[in-house]
């Protein structure tokens, strides 16, 4: 058996020596923070024009995470590239010849990349929270307020899990183009649209992003949205189940198919 610490060291070297790691993770951070800041500033100036129902359920914490709708796409790209460049470069054959225990290989890679994306996700959610609150003026909330810390931590975990989910999908599909071509429109368009369509929304609320992002709500039914049949932790659990399913699928494909 290959030594697991050795494989982890190797995977860490792989991640830190390619430039895509830097630019995708910096993008995730910067895009989330910038878009959240802009929306917080806008809402602060437009608060009085909001419908009464939205004013009543105004969720300043959630609003400061609104940039994750875009920022998560950079996490998807990170997750996909970590896995699929092994295939597109042909490195996978070299890697598996060095570490023929495919489970050790895959889960070492995902552990290293997953921890890194969770760290970046948490840094992003804390930064975007404080930046957003600073721009919300009188409508701000405080990190010490009820459930706010849970939402901030949850936001970081959400971003990390989205990246890990993408790694699992990319391991199944073994192609950057295919993985990005499915995941990007799904998270950016399909999921968003279906969640607004009557009838479809009952299904769409179990999608990974729709369910997982509930963890960032502090006010139930925030911004006058429909209440979900699960709580914040239940929602994160649904996302975690998607992640586990993607990883099992990826593992089975890697184990069975020829490299």
């Amino acid at each position: 058996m290959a030594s697991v610490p050795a494989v982890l060291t190797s995977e860490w070297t792989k991640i830190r020596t390619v430039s895509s790691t830097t630019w995708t993770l910096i993008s995730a951070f910067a895009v989330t923070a910038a878009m959240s800041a802009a929306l917080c500033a806008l809402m602060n100036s437009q608060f009085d024009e909001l419908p009464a129902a939205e004013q009543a359920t105004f969720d300043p914490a959630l609003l400061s995470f609104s940039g994750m709708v875009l920022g998560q796409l950079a996490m998807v790209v990170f997750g996909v590239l970590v896995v699929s460049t092994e295939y597109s470069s042909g490195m996978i054959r070299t890697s598996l010849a060095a570490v023929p225990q495919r489970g050790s290989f895959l889960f070492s890679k995902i552990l290293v990349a997953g921890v890194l994306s969770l760290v970046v996700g948490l840094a992003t959610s804390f930064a975007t929270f404080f930046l957003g609150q600073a721009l919300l003026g009188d409508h701000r909330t405080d990190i010490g307020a009820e459930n706010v810390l849970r939402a901030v931590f949850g936001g970081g975990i959400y971003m990390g899990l989205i990246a890990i989910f993408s790694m699992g999908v990319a391991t199944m599909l073994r192609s950057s183009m295919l993985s990005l071509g499915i995941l990007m429109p799904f998270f950016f368009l399909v999921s968003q649209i279906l969640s607004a369509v009557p009838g479809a929304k009952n299904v769409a609320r179990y999608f990974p992003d729709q369910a997982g992002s509930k963890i960032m709500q502090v006010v139930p039914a925030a911004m006058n949205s429909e209440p979900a049949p699960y709580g914040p932790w239940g929602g994160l659990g649904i996302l975690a189940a998607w992640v586990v399913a993607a990883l099992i699928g990826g593992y089975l494909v890697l184990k069975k198919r020829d490299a």
Partner: protein
Amino acid sequence: MIELDGLTKRFGNKVAVDHLSFQVRPGMVTGFLGPNGAGKSTTMRMMLDLDNPTSGSVRIDGKHYRELSEPLKHIGALLDAKSMHGGRSAYDNLLCLAQSNRIPESRVPEVLDTVGLTAVAKKKSKSFSLGMGQRLGIAAALLGDPEILMFDEPVNGLDPEGIHWIRNLMKTLAAEGRTIFVSSHLMSEMALTAEHLIVIGQGRLLADTSMADFIHQNSRSYVRMRSPQQERLRDVLHEAGIIAVESGSGVLEIDGSTSEQLGELAAQHQIVLHELSSQRASLEEAFMQMTADSVEYHAHADHAGWPPPPAGPQWGEQWNQQHDSFTSGTSGPGKGA
């Protein structure tokens, strides 16, 4: 030592590798020869546990590949020039491989030096030419100082200097007692490097023999004679019971006699000779005849007749010169003119 036992790989209905059983022994270069599509690369991928065999097994020093702890220390392989991440430097590509098998980092500059890539160690490997990519792949194979080395078509894309280098590298490695297994679709390349030969066609084993035996059995040797007194020469040969075949433009080809015998015979009868040369049909031709029935992709439907062997020094002749046992007085055509 690599042992294959009934190794079989099917892709749907197509059999790529068909019950292959052979051994690759240490201390020599074993050539793995077959036309394109014969199943060489698939066999090599199964040896490294990259492809799962449909049936049969491969043992590396008695173990399945997956049972090797830190396999790069046992077996190094060059499968494909494109087997590294292009966005990573040559050094970093080798470093992450070394780390995964607990090979000291000091080996990385060593192998880069061995393959002559020290100057470009920090460059991204996507900027490498095909030949440099091959060298990087060879560096990766050498990283763990393994006892067994496998090279899949290593000379592809190399310039003549690179080809010369890799031939010598393989011989040096074999002389150190290592097991070298190298595939090629060129008989000529094998004749220069390999001592033992495994030939496959359409996934089936066609030959498992020493290179010397292969040359001995598969290359027809004959003597070419040319004389201005051709009629007399034919009569003399006929009287001596020697059958000569005229092959156009006044050339006689004689099977079953040595050039010494024929030269002395002509001298006894005072016949002037313009040419007397022993010839050997090309190994390439022998290889093509052996695999003709099993070639996957023919250039055209009609392949009844292979083109005649090219004029000039034949493939394998260099090998023969190195191993003098087979030839005496070999010369190219036109020497006596």
